[in-house]
């Protein structure tokens, strides 16, 4: 399926943009084992589609699409459904050493709030937080910009309330 040259390019791309896959897995799967499964599945899909990548869209756009399609569209029942404590325990191996516990706690609060949104809203908010323009969001999601703006306004309100509630509950 791939040649060594392809592999080198692919590895370089994953090194540069692997954070997208990490974020998608954390947004769409709560359990650590499910996240690892999703990361592996996304990498599989990206590697499988890599020979067909023609550069018609940006690499990041292409990875966002594959990651989100894998997380959202290829819906399947998750075997592990019991929630477990995840605060501060996510991917300890990929968190930078200098990254302190308090920040991780805040980040987890943010992730927990976003996970309460529906699947599509999660994708929109992730792209927003990643500073993507509405044009890029449209290119990735296929939702027109007008609709995206309306959604984003609603999501902002929801997130404010959710994070406020989480902070009071914490």
């Amino acid at each position, binding site marked *: 399926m791939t040649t060594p040259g392809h592999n080198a390019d692919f590895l370089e791309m994953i090194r540069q943009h692997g*954070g997208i896959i990490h974020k998608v897995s954390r947004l769409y799967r709560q359990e650590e084992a499910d996240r690892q499964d999703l990361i592996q599945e996304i990498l*599989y899909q990206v590697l499988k589609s890599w020979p067909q990548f023609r550069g018609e869209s940006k690499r990041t756009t292409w990875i966002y699409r594959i990651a989100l399609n894998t997380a959202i569209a290829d819906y399947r029942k998750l075997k592990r459904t019991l929630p477990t404590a995840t605060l501060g325990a996510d991917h300890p191996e990929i968190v930078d050493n200098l990254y302190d516990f308090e920040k991780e706690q805040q980040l987890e609060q943010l992730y927990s709030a976003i996970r309460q949104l529906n699947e599509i809203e999660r994708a929109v908010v992730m792209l927003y937080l990643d500073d993507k323009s509405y044009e890029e969001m449209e290119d990735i999601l296929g939702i027109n910009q007008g609709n995206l703006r309306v959604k984003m306004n609603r999501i902002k309100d929801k997130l*404010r309330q959710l994070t*406020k509630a989480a902070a009071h509950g914490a």
Partner: protein
Amino acid sequence: MELDNMKKIWNEQANAQLPGADDDSLQSIMRTKSKMPLASLKRNLLAELITVILCYGGVVVLFLTSFQGSWQLVAWAYFILGALYLFYFYRKYKLLKEMDAPASQVKVNLEQKVKTLEKYVNFYLFSGTAAIFLLLWFFWFLLVENLPYIGSESVFFPSSNRHLMSAVFNWFLVTVAFTLLMHQLSKRWVNKLYGQHIRKLRELINQMEEIETKPHPDE
């Protein structure tokens, strides 16, 4: 937490990297099987193809070479069924390939998946129903041809005191009733297999198009 603060927290995780992105891990990823529903469908279809080739092939050889050639009709019937199955396999595999578009826009991908999955399910349902109807007639014809004395035992077969058309009509009623019953059962089975998945995909499209019937409690 305000949105500016959210962005700040979010962007501070930018240095998060995927562990083990090296050549070995790539090879190991490619050795694993995809666990997505689409990949399972493809694997199941290929397993079905192999099973059909082995079983039908065995039946064809058996009936061609045994029983002093008196049941060769069965062999040819299975040969035709096998050829029809190949068409069925090709159509289903083509639909599965159409469903596999991970690099397209999320909405386009969802719409394509729903559309193709519905075609897939309808084709599955239609083929199953048609196969039951044809098989019932095939076995009727086989019995009439090879066991002519069976007519005296049953109203479904012609005999010296039962006209062919009368037997055909009786058997037709049975085949229609049985086919309709099996069609209903197949519908339930197909709904159990794919219904939840199709409903979920539709719900996602509705979320994208903002056709939400229930307003969010915060709104």
